[in-house]
C-alpha cells in the first residue's frame, strides 16, 4: 500500500481484478450504489486572526454513474469543498470535521455487477477526512481524479504534456515507458486532440486554452477513476470551446461509467448536464435535489434570485434583470441566522436570528434550508428536444 510502484498494492483486498481500462475487466458499481458519501463535513482554516469556517455541515451523496453539480458564487465555499473532498487541503492549519467516505472499488466482469454481486455495503470506510496523505495517494488518480480550473497554472510549464499524462500510468499502474506513451497518445486522441503524437511532445504553453483543458482531462482520466471532480472546468474558455469540453466530459462519463462532480458558478453549465445539483451559499448547502426539481421547483429564495439574475438569450433586449441586492457574504463575518437573510426580500426577524436547517420536500432527495420558503410547485415533465443540426437547415439561394 505504501509502495506506489506496484499497482496491485494500491487497492487493498481487491487487487486480483485490478486492471487497466481496455482489458475485459471493468470496474463499475451497480446503478444507484453510493460512491461518495459526504456526511456533515466542515472545513476550518486556522488563521492568525482566528478560525475561519469556509465550509459548514455539508452532507450529500454521489451515486455511481451520476453527475452532480455544485453551484455557488464566489465565497460560497464550493472550491474549498472540492479540495476537501479530494483531501487536497494542506495538512497544516486546516481542520476537516465530519466524514467523507469513498466506496471501495468493485471489480467484476462487465454485467456481473447487476447479477447480484454487489457487496452488501460498498461504503466500507475509506475515510478521506482522516486519511494520511500516504493512504490518500492510493485513492488519488485511481479512484478519484480532479480537473482543475485553470489549465494554464495547473499544468507544469516545464514538462512535456505527454510526460504529465504518462506519469500517473507509470507510477500508479506500473506501465512500461513505451506502454504508458502508447496509452497517453490514446488518451490524447480520446479527448479530441488532433495529431496526438506531436502534441505528446508539446509543452503546455504551446497549446491553446481549450487544448490545455483537454490535456487536463486526459491526465485525470489516465488511471480510470470512478469519480471525476471538475472544478470550474470551463471557466475562462470561449463559449464554443466550453461546449466542446462539456460534451467531451459527458461523453467520457457515459463511456466509462464515471461519476462526475461538476463544480461551477454558472447555472447554465449544470442545467442540462447534471442529474442533481447542490446550491451553496456562505459555505453551506441551501438547496439540493434533482436538477429539474431545483430549477423548476426551488423553494429557497436564493436559488430563485440566482436564476432570475442570470441573463438569458431568450430575454428580449433591454429586459430588466432581477437583481440580488448587496453582495455575497464575507466568510470571515457570517451573520448568525440564515447567511442569505441580509439580501433576501422574504427575510423576517427569525431569518436574521436563527439558522434554518435543511428540510425535505415532497420530491425525493430535494432539500432546502429556509424559514420562509417559496410555495411548492410541481416540476413539469421534461420537454427538451435536441435541436436540429446546423448546416442541414441552411438556406441556400
Amino acid at each position, binding site marked *: 500500500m505504501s509502495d506506489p510502484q506496484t499497482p496491485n498494492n494500491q487497492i487493498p483486498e481487491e487487487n486480483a481484478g485490478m486492471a487497466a481500462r481496455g482489458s475485459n475487466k471493468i470496474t463499475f458499481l451497480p446503478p444507484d450504489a453510493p460512491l461518495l458519501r459526504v456526511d456533515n463535513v466542515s472545513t476550518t482554516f486556522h488563521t492568525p486572526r482566528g478560525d475561519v469556517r469556509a465550509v459548514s455541515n455539508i452532507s450529500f451523496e454521489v451515486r455511481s454513474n451520476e453527475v452532480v453539480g455544485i453551484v455557488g*458564487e*464566489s465565497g460560497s465555499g464550493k472550491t474549498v469543498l472540492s479540495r476537501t473532498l479530494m483531501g487536497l487541503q494542506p495538512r497544516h492549519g486546516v481542520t476537516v470535521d465530519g466524514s467523507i467516505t469513498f466506496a471501495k472499488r468493485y471489480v467484476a466482469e462487465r454485467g456481473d455487477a447487476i447479477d447480484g454481486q454487489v457487496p452488501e455495503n460498498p461504503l466500507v470506510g475509506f475515510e478521506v477526512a482522516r486519511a494520511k496523505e500516504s493512504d490518500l495517494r492510493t485513492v488519488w488518480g485511481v479512484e478519484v481524479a480532479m480537473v482543475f480550473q485553470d489549465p494554464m497554472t495547473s499544468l507544469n510549464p516545464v514538462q512535456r504534456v505527454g510526460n504529465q499524462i504518462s506519469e500517473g500510468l507509470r507510477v500508479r499502474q506500473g506501465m512500461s515507458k513505451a506502454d504508458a506513451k502508447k496509452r497517453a497518445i490514446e488518451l490524447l486522441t480520446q479527448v479530441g486532440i*488532433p495529431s496526438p503524437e506531436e502534441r505528446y511532445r508539446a509543452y503546455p504553453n504551446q497549446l491553446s*486554452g*481549450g487544448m490545455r483543458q483537454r490535456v487536463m482531462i486526459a491526465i485525470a482520466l489516465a488511471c480510470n477513476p470512478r469519480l471525476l471532480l471538475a472544478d470550474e472546468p470551463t471557466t475562462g474558455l*470561449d*463559449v*464554443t*470551446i*466550453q*461546449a*466542446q469540453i*462539456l*460534451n467531451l466530459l459527458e461523453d467520457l462519463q457515459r463511456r466509462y461509467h464515471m461519476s462526475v462532480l461538476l463544480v461551477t*458558478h*454558472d*447555472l*447554465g*453549465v449544470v*442545467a*442540462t448536464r447534471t442529474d442533481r445539483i447542490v446550491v451553496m451559499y456562505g459555505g453551506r448547502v441551501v438547496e439540493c435535489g434533482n436538477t*429539474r426539481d431545483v*430549477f423548476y421547483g426551488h423553494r429557497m429564495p436564493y436559488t430563485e*434570485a*440566482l*436564476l432570475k*439574475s*442570470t*441573463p*438569458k*438569450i*431568450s*430575454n*428580449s*433586449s*433591454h*429586459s*430588466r*434583470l*432581477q*437583481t*440580488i*441586492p448587496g*453582495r*455575497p457574504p464575507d466568510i470571515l463575518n457570517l451573520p448568525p441566522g440564515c447567511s442569505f437573510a441580509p*439580501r433576501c426580500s422574504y427575510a423576517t426577524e427569525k431569518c436574521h436570528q436563527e439558522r434554518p436547517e435543511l428540510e425535505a420536500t415532497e420530491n425525493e432527495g430535494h432539500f432546502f434550508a429556509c424559514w420562509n420558503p417559496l410555495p411548492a410547485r410541481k416540476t*413539469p415533465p*421534461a*420537454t*427538451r*428536444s*435536441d*435541436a436540429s*443540426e*446546423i*448546416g442541414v437547415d*441552411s*438556406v*441556400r*439561394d
Partner: protein
Amino acid sequence: MSETNSDKKVLLEVRDLRVEFRKGKRVVSAVAGLDFDIYEGETLGLVGESGCGKSTTGRALMLIEQPTAGTVKLGDVEITKLKGRALRAARRQMQMIFQDPISSLNPRRRVKDIVAEPIDCWRAAKGEEREKIIFDLLTKVGIDPRVYGNRYARQFSGGQCQRISIARSLAMKPQMLICDEMVSALDVSIQAQILNLLEDLKEEYGLTLLFIAHDLAVVKNVSDRVAVMYLGKFCEIGPSDVMYAEPAHPYTKFLLSAALEADPDSPRHDQVLEGEPPSPLDPPSGCRFRTRCPNATELCASTVPEMQTLSDGHQVACHFPLVPVRRSAAPAGADA
C-alpha cells in the same frame, strides 16, 4: 450604413478600420477592415471569442491602439486625424470601462479622487462644484459618498470597483461609453446589478454604448444591435432580437447553440463548432470562417463574402446565409 436607418443620427462612423501588429517579419491583422455606424442613443453589442479582435477594435476607436488604416468619426470630428491636445479633448467624449475593475483603479487613491481625476485633469470644476459633481456621481452609481468617498480603491470588491469605474467614466459627461468585458469578472448577482445600473445611467445621461463581451446572453440583454466578429472581421450585424431569433451566419448560429441557458429544458445542440480559430497570422483565404464551416464550398475559399442586407439593418457576410436575402430590400452596396 443602411438607408432604412437614415432617420437615426449617426454618432460614431467607422470606415475600413484596420489594426495590424508586427510579429517578427509577419503581420497580424487583428482588425481587418470594419465598417459600421453607431447611432445616437443606441447600444451596439460586439461579440466574439478570444482573439477575434473585439477588444482591439474598442481600443482602436479610442485611439489607444493606433489604427493602421481607416477613419473613425465621432459626430463631425474625424478623430483619426487628431493629435495631441485636440485628440485628448475628443477622447473626453468617449470613455472606456475595462474588464478587470480592481486593477484598472489605482489601489492607493481615494475613491473621490479617482472619480474626480478627469475633472481635475481638465480643470472642469473646482471647490464646491467639484465636490457636488463627485457626490452626485457616486450616489448615482450606488456608492454612498459620505461613507465610502474617502476610502481607498483597494478596500472595495470587484462589483464596487466597477461602479467606481462607471462614475469616473461619466465625470466629463461623455457622449459614448466603450465597455470592454465590463461584467465578465463579476458574480452573477453582481453582474445583474451592474447591467441594470448601466441601463439606468444610459437613459439618464443619454449615452451611446459599445458593449464588448463574449457572453451572448449578457450582450442580448443590453444591446439594440449586435455585431458578431470572427478573426478580425464582422460576420453579421443586426438588431439583436432579429439576429438571435434567426441567425444568418453559420458562426452566429454555432455561437448561439453553444451558449448555455440556465434551463434544463433548453435545447441541447450536440453538433458543436469543431476545432479552434486559425491563427490570425495566417488567416484563411476568402471567408475567414470557411475552415470550420460545414457549408463551405470552393466559392468560400476563393472569394471574400461581401456584407449583404437581409432585412432592416440585418446584414451578413456569407455566401450562403441561413436566412434568405430579400433582394428588394437590399439595394446594391448598402454598406459603405
